[in-house]
């Protein structure tokens, strides 16, 4: 398998719906693992997902998934599973029937379809609810049956639009564990979610999009380092936070200090992270302050989102 045949590739892709911009000049190269699409409503996340699932064709540019395009429908859709964000089920079907029909639509034989449907129901832990009509499902169960539908045919690329919506904390944890397991096996998972703190824990890379434009992409820590105009925030747990803050302010790069609520730590903002750590090392070596822990406090997806896109959804 060549490198490109193991990737989801967008080459200068634009999509317009009439005069409405979907996405503009998007170039992405998504490796296996969990990739999170982050952006405000209307930013183009669903358009990106529709493009990579072949539901819409780009106005310009080229999209390929594991080297395949939707023109080769049989092979393409065998590799791609899509979990939409909408409650879109044919009426009067049980969960099992829904999965069976989905698998038959994928071209599986009836025997394989039965086997794979059972396997998917077991995997999302739907249990006996699979025999009930979907109309009677709770929101969380509907999410699960949608997820089961997306993974039932053993795709290698799983595109999940808001897969955690409506799930209770336990079901969320189960879903996240399943996503992690699948990504660990070498599968592509592309997830859009507003529940950033939870998705953040399993994301290998993040794509930030707003107004149809990609604002940033890549490993979240790498992205944070590249946002140079926003001083990085670091939490240092120590026995003398006030003294530490005063020492750090002796250098120009430190721009803000805030004591932790419990008084046993300090949040420090710095414009030069390398210089910051050098000074911190020096302080630690001096031994006057006992430093217990050092952790970045704002290189998660939520912080990046707020820095790059802002709470109003407009890129800064």
């Amino acid at each position, binding site marked *: 398998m060549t490198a490109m045949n193991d990737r989801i590739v967008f080459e200068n892709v634009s999509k317009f719906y009439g005069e409405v911009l979907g996405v503009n000049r998007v170039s992405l190269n998504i490796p296996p693992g*969990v990739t999170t699409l982050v952006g405000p409503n209307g930013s183009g996340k669903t358009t990106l997902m529709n493009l990579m699932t072949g539901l819409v064709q780009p106005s310009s540019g080229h999209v390929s998934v594991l080297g395949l395009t939707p023109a080769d429908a049989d092979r393409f859709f065998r590799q791609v599973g899509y979990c939409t964000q909408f409650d879109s089920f044919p009426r009067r079907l049980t969960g099992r029937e829904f999965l069976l029909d989905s698998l038959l639509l994928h071209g599986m034989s009836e025997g394989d379809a039965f086997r794979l449907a059972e396997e998917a129901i077991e995997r999302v832990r739907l249990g006996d609810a699979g025999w009930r009509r979907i109309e009677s499902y709770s929101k969380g169960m509907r999410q699960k049956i949608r997820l089961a539908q997306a993974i039932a045919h053993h795709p290698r690329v799983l595109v999940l639009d808001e897969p955690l919506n409506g799930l209770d904390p336990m079901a969320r944890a189960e879903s996240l564990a399943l996503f992690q397991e699948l990504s660990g096996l070498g599968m592509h998972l592309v997830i859009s979610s507003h529940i950033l703190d939870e998705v953040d824990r399993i994301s290998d890379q993040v794509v930030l999009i707003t107004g149809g434009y990609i604002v940033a992409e890549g490993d979240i820590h790498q992205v944070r380092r590249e946002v140079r105009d926003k001083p990085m925030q670091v939490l240092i747990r120590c026995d003398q936070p006030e003294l530490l803050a005063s020492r750090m302010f002796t250098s120009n790069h430190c721009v803000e200090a805030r004591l932790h609520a419990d008084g046993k730590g300090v949040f420090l903002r710095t414009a030069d992270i390398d210089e910051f750590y050098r000074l911190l090392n020096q302080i630690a070596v001096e031994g006057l302050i006992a430093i217990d822990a050092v952790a970045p406090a704002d290189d998660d997806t939520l912080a990046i989102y707020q820095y790059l896109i802002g709470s109003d959804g407009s890129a800064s």
Partner: protein
Amino acid sequence: MSVYKHEYRAYTGALTPLWSRVVVVVRYAIAEAWSSRITVALFILSMLPVVVYLVGIYLANNSLARAIIMRRDNGFEIGAGFFLNLLATQCWIALGISAWIAPRLVSFDLADNALPILLSHPISRFGYVMGKLIALLACLSPVTWIPCLLLFAYQGYSSAHPWFMANLRIAGGLLVGSLLWIAFLSILGLAISAWVKWRVVATGAIFAVVFVPAGIGGIITGVLRTRWGFLLNAPVMMTQLWQRLLGAPEMMRDQLHLPTVAILIVLTLVCGICVLMLNARIRGREVVRG
């Protein structure tokens, strides 16, 4: 950094042919159509004229019955005219049934946003529409060409004369005439279902598309004294077409006859517009905000 074991294996089993996947859509659509008791009631009602015509054939071929009920031996002949009436009756009933069934077939999927989930399978928009179309044809066939051909076969069986082979053109006309009409109704019904969300309005729209232009066509014909106004009049147009297909005597004056080619062009044009309407609405994408 994640470590990818690359242990995941995609499904590698054999795949069924494309047509068998369309069957899933057909099955959904037929289940949807027959989920209402009104559909069942309409279907039963549609069989009443068939029974009447069946009795007619029985009486026409039973010499005792002819002698007792009709009092004369040659007053009631079974021929193209008889089957034209049967075909016309069943075809107009089919209009009513399609106006009831068709509106829910596409509009429900659009309302539920079900198209992205369906079209993210290896089935094209064409396959989706074909599935719905086949389902509608399957629902309308038992009302139109199937009973017509069964009655034709019964007449062939009952007739003392070598009637069957001598009147094969009628059978061909019944089949082709029915199929043309139900195909037209099906595609029209799907197009309206794709654009009109409310069932009652969609049902009304199907009747309106058939009968409102007929009124306009009548005015054009009356005011301009031209036969071309009838090209907007589906009942007149179809009756003329069915007459020719069955070889039945035409009832209108010669100068009001429409060329068969013109009728077929109008039907094709309407179907073309319906295809464009479907093409505009049957999309895999979800709602795009902003």
